[in-house]
């Protein structure tokens, strides 16, 4: 169990990373989130990184993995709140986070998750009907 709380809001899970994560903590969060997506039948995952002062290749890989795992489990992951200096550094590091959806803040992230879930549900309804 990681020390980072995972909050459930409707059919979404919200994680706000407020600590400087060591590598084992990042791995634990990745495992916990994957378990919780299934246990809570979550459709969306929002990860708030506004408190993170750096994102290095290890944390970047964790974000990529969470996005990929949630996709396989039929959930949408959105990373919100990346600081500008972190974004500049990430790109120069060579990490584009191509598989990860991002939004500027929690409000925009929730709206993005909502719209993706609604679209996929209306596509399902259309197909089933």
């Amino acid at each position, binding site marked *: 169990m990681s020390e980072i709380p995972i909050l459930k809001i409707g059919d979404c899970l919200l994680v706000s990373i407020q600590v400087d*994560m060591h590598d084992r903590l990042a791995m634990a969060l990745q495992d916990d989130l994957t378990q919780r997506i299934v246990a809570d039948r979550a459709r969306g995952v929002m990860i708030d990184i506004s408190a993170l*002062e750096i994102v290095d290749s290890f944390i970047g890989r964790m974000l990529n993995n969470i996005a990929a795992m949630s996709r396989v489990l039929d959930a949408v992951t959105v990373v919100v709140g990346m600081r500008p*200096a972190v974004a500049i550094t990430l790109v120069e*590091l*060579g990490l584009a986070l191509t598989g990860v959806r991002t939004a500027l803040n929690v409000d925009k992230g929730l709206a993005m998750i909502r719209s993706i879930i609604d679209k996929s549900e209306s596509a399902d309804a259309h197909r089933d009907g």
Partner: protein
Amino acid sequence: MLIETGETMPLRNSDDVVRVRQAVRARAVGAGFSLVDQTKIVTAASEVARNTVDYGGGGTLRIEVLRDGRRTGVRLTFIDQGPGIADIAKAMTDGYTTGGGLGLGLSGAKRLSNEFAITSTPGSGTVVTLARWK
């Protein structure tokens, strides 16, 4: 070139990697680095520190604040007595990894630094030196 301050820190595990990030941040702030420059050198430090722990079997980091005329810089020297790197050119290639990572550690750290040097002797260890100037 003048070395204004220096400190040496142990690098044994991933908790030490976090401590190194915080210490490098404090030195970069003290040297008057901009937020982007702080973020770049802290990220580079995190990448190389993880390599020292994961591949070098642990080691040490020396952090120095440098003054060269009107320029201020931070220099980091990572030393381990691990197995060393047989092919440095290959280890510096994007995407190359012998572990489970993305293979961006050394190549990414080099891109985030103004100066970067690596020397390694198979069987006796690796020294990575990087510097960023304000």
